[in-house]
């Protein structure tokens, strides 16, 4: 990185921390620290919700996903606007009316303490583990591509986040989020414009889209129903809606963002703003990945984008074989570039037969170079047993470092850091709030004054330290990381089921919901262990199982001899 890049990166991160500290000053009560003073406007809530959801890996992985698999990943977000509307009608008014600080307080009012604690503890487990990965995954990519120490990366992100999050609480997090979103949007927008600009001069934007589409990278909608296919229209609309309902309705890292609204209208509009922005935003990030894919149709990409395992092959006995594959790959890619040029020329000529022929040749050439690439990856796997053969997360940043101009590289890396910081701050702030409100305040009976601010700071600090420690440990987890990544879907369905039962199944009482949730969670874990069902469906399965079991248990209870009448809660 050049000095200008360092200046941009350092300046951006310093600004985020100082802005968060400045705007978050003055919390004197637990409510002010955890609830952010409940004076946030809709746009601040909306930005904060988007920033919490947007992690650094979103920016590293999403363009890479489009490069490798096309744009169908956007379907994952189709449930979000539906969930935003459902929550605006149902849960948000309820949260406001009960003036709760965490989502789980509602469950004690409706059921009992043990159901509230079960949901709070499920949240603390899954979110506590996930926050470690939030900072580990981008730190790993940055450390490999930039040669920075993984430990320094984790320590830097964790320390910067804790400075303003521990000090200022929810208000500091929300205002820091607004500045992070500006950096993220600016970095990604400029990267997209520059990528389109760096295509060969005779390749227009429309030509680029035709090349990407011809090679199957613009396959946005897949309407074919297949429960084992992770990203299609139906998994996005059905499974995605349940996931988003659970995430935005019952995950404290999101609930805390809109509970900071000055009134019901501001909270609703904040969540709906997210519902409107997220799908187009993900589409644009994926389109950026598709443009990077087109860029590499006219420039030779590395055979494998993660340089770490390549270095290990080159240091071992397979170095000569790998070099030979690299040479073959470079030759195939040169041929592919010529085919891409011919396809663009044919499109300019407008000759339909020529277009069809050159497109067929381009597809054939692409398939050949992919086959050679697979040979190289197989050699990498042979030389590094246990290495991850998937280099998707490295594609975008490798492209940025090698092809974008000085200054913009610093801005994109600042956007990656901002993504990492924004999600970590929202998450540790929520973990701290749940620890204080649902455990400390409820079980120990603490006051809401200045003392609670300090308890909140200690809890947030402790979760920040836990996240950094888990991120350090994650380096040794290997393939288990993927299991931890889908952890959310293993628990979200059950938590959502408890909330839906609370809201809609009036006959169910406290103990019944608790035991139904335990049985449903065991069922979801069995599905995960013994079936190949895509993880998005666990949200639906867990949710339906809790509601169904709670209803069945309460029915059985009311029909058993000696049972009294069941009255609606």
């Amino acid at each position, binding site marked *: 990185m050049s000095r200008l890049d360092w200046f941009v990166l350092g300046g951006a991160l310093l600004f985020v921390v100082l802005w968060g500290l400045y705007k978050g000053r003055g919390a004197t009560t637990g409510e002010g620290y955890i609830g952010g003073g409940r004076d946030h406007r809709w746009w601040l809530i909306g930005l904060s919700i988007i920033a919490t959801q947007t992690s650094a890996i979103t920016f590293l992985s999403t363009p890479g996903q489009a490069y490798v698999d096309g744009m169908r990943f956007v379907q994952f977000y189709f449930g979000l*606007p539906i969930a935003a509307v459902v929550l605006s009608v149902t849960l948000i008014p309820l949260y406001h009316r009960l003036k709760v600080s965490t989502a789980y307080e509602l469950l004690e*009012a409706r059921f009992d303490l043990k159901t509230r604690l079960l949901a709070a503890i499920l949240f603390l487990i899954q979110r506590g583990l996930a926050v470690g990965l939030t900072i580990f995954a981008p730190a790993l990519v940055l450390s490999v591509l930039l040669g920075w120490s993984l430990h320094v990366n984790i320590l830097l992100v964790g320390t910067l986040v804790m400075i303003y999050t521990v000090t200022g609480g929810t208000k500091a997090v929300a205002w820091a989020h607004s500045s992070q979103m500006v950096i993220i949007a600016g970095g990604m927008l400029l990267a997209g414009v520059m990528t389109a600009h760096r295509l060969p001069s005779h390749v227009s934007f429309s030509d680029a889209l035709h090349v990407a*589409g011809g090679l199957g990278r613009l396959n*946005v909608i897949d309407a074919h129903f297949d429960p084992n296919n992770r990203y299609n229209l139906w998994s996005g609309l059905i499974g995605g809606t349940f996931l988003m309902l659970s995430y935005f309705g019952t995950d404290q890292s999101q609930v805390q963002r809109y509970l900071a609204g000055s009134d019901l209208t501001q909270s609703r*509009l904040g969540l709906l703003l997210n519902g409107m922005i997220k799908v187009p935003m993900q589409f644009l990030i994926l389109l950026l990945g598709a443009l990077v894919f087109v860029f590499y149709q006219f420039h030779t990409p590395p055979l494998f984008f993660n340089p770490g395992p390549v270095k290990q092959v080159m240091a071992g006995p397979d170095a000569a074989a790998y070099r030979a594959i690299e040479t073959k790959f470079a030759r195939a890619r040169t041929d592919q570039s010529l085919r891409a040029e011919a396809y663009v020329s044919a499109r300019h000529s407008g000759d339909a037969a020529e277009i069809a022929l050159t497109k067929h040749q381009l597809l054939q050439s692409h398939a050949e170079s992919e086959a050679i690439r697979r040979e190289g990856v197989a050699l990498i796997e042979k030389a590094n047993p246990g290495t991850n053969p998937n280099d998707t997360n490295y594609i975008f940043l490798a492209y940025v470092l090698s092809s974008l101009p000085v200054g913009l590289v610093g801005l994109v890396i600042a956007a990656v850091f901002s993504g990492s910081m924004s999600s970590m701050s929202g998450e540790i702030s929520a973990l701290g709030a749940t620890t204080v409100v649902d455990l400390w305040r409820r079980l120990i009976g603490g006051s809401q004054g200045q003392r609670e601010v300090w308890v909140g700071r200690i809890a947030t600090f402790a979760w920040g330290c836990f996240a950094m420690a888990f991120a350090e440990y994650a380096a040794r987890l290997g393939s288990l990381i993927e299991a931890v990544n889908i952890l959310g879907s293993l628990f979200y369905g059950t938590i959502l089921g408890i909330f839906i039962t609370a809201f809609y199944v009036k006959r169910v009482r406290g103990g019944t919901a608790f035991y139904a949730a335990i049985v449903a969670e065991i069922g979801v874990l069995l599905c995960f262990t013994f079936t190949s069902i895509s993880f998005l469906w666990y949200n639906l399965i867990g949710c339906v199982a809790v509601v169904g079991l709670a209803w069945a248990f309460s029915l059985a209870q009311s029909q058993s001899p000696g049972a009294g009448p069941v009255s609606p*809660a």
Partner: protein
Amino acid sequence: MTVTEPEKEGMPPLLGSWKRVYAVVLGELLLCILLFRLFSWAYS
């Protein structure tokens, strides 16, 4: 407690009613799906 009591709510600052706001949000999703389908078809 009863958790299903209707909530007194303010009017949204735009469009006059919450139903219209929700229709805009869901309409945008539908429009996105249709445009994405068209986009995939146009550049396939």
